[in-house]
């Protein structure tokens, strides 16, 4: 069942078009990612989904509701974590959760939420005294405190250290296992690859690809890469002739072969037939990051 349907969304600001034409649907219970560089229109898109902005064109349905017209109903059922949103410095962790819980008819168990997010010993700490990661985790807790059907999380791990990021990923998987649909905005490809069931790759206000991370990677004609050092001279032509091979490069004494399908098998049989021993042989799988670069033609902007 589809819980979010975005059709031909268009949003223009005074001087530029933030979203040209974006369409996607999110199924109940999945973690759906929107990835793309800064300024691609990701945040604008989810802000339209949340009802914070009015689209200039196209249509959006969230849980069958129109985010602008039925905003009141929707806000009971969708939890949001915004990029760059803070709390008053002197508000304590438990007070923030208590306050936000009071906005909803059937809030989640605050104590459990606090513990799950590793803020148990910070209950009495004021927001101003929390570290960046703790602030981020509190912000996620506030998005979940209303026990939403959909959680929209915008750049949820920016500013977190590697350990905190992994913990947050585990938490998001738990949230999904609890039946919540997650719409995730991120510019971290490792995060999208690890968490998302499907991702929409957005660039310059358009969806350039939409699939599961593994399919996006498999779609690349350089999905796999083999590196080895031939023990005796090797004619590149032997490898290029193989249908699985896309390219052969020399990196000093190292040979780098890219390609698809059963690349390793094809390459090693040629080597064996010609009695060439491959030393230090390594097979590398392309990541979503590589697929992203191939799709958009530029690298994901990293912090």
């Amino acid at each position, binding site marked *: 069942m589809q819980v979010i349907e975005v059709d031909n969304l268009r949003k223009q600001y005074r001087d530029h078009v933030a979203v040209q034409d974006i369409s996607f649907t999110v199924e109940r219970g999945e973690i759906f990612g929107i990835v793309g560089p800064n300024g691609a229109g990701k945040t604008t898109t989810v802000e339209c989904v*949340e*009802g*914070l902005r009015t689209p200039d064109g196209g249509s959006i349905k969230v849980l069958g509701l129109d985010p602008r017209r039925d905003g*009141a109903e929707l*806000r*009971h059922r*969708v*939890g*949001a974590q*915004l990029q*760059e*949103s*803070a*709390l*008053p410095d*002197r*508000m304590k962790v438990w*007070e923030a959760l208590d*306050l*936000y819980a*009071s*906005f*909803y008819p059937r809030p989640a168990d605050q104590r459990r939420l606090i513990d799950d997010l590793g803020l148990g010993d910070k209950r009495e700490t004021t927001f101003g005294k929390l570290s960046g990661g703790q602030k981020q985790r509190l912000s996620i807790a*506030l998005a979940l405190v*209303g026990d939403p059907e959909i959680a929209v999380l915008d750049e949820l791990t920016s500013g977190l250290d590697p350990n905190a990021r992994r913990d947050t990923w585990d938490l998001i998987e738990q949230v999904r296992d609890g039946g919540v649909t997650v719409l995730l905005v991120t510019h971290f490809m490792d995060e999208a690859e690890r968490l998302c069931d499907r991702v929409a790759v957005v660039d310059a206000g358009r969806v350039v690809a939409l699939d599961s991370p593994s399919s996006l990677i498999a779609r690349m004609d350089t999905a796999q890469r083999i590196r080895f050092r031939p023990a005796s001279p090797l004619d590149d032509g032997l490898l290029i002739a193989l249908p699985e091979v896309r390219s052969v490069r020399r990196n000093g004494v190292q040979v780098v072969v890219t390609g698809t399908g059963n690349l390793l098998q094809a390459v090693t049989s040629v080597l064996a037939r010609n009695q060439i021993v491959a030393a230090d042989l390594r097979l590398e799988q392309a990541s979503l990051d590589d697929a992203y670069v191939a799709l958009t033609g530029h690298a994901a902007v990293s912090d």
Partner: protein
Amino acid sequence: MTGLPRLIFMELKLFLREPLAVFFAVAFPALLVGILGSVPGFREPKQDIGGLRVIDLYVPIAIAFVLVMLSLNLVPATLATYRERGILRRLATTPVGPTALLAAQMLMSLLMAVGAVLLVLAVGRLAFDVALPQQPTGFALAFVLGAAAVFAMGLVLAAVAPSARSAQGFGTVLFFPVMFFAGLWVPRAAMPGTLRDISDFTPLGATVQALQDAAAGAWPQALHLAVMAAYAVVFGLVAVRTFRWQ
């Protein structure tokens, strides 16, 4: 407790955690009355101010001080901070919405103002024998209209200020002319005629005179009530038109 009352309670808690703000808005005006009242000459009736004592004049001025501190300094800075830090936007994604926070902040400040005014009246009455308002209804009306006028101005300030810091700056700059015409440095009764005429048309000049009249047992003058109401309506409309949530 849910929704608005919960937000008001939270705003109150946050306000009470700012000792400096609490001191200036709530305690200082009563302290001002206490300090002025301890000058012996200010407790003597004076012919040039209509047979009143200076301390009698300063009770309404201290009330104006309460209003200006809350409406032009604290509320705009707080609201601008809430906007700057995305707190209003964050609330826009919850069932209560950002208007509730704005309302909670205003109501909490009004509550504080009432408390501070009672403190001022109590100090005046108990320490210096300043009579309690003889026309309580008129006094309450003058207070409410005066508060509406300056709180509407404070909202406009919060709307147009690009940042929390500038909201605070504008508030401080506005404090001086507004309080000057309210009579903080020269009470209205001692102002030259032209100055007093101008003061009649300023929000807190009108408020102070209306409070003064009601304290003495008369109904506030229509001019002063109209001036306060006009400020409240005009600035209120401008605030509604210009307020930005993000």
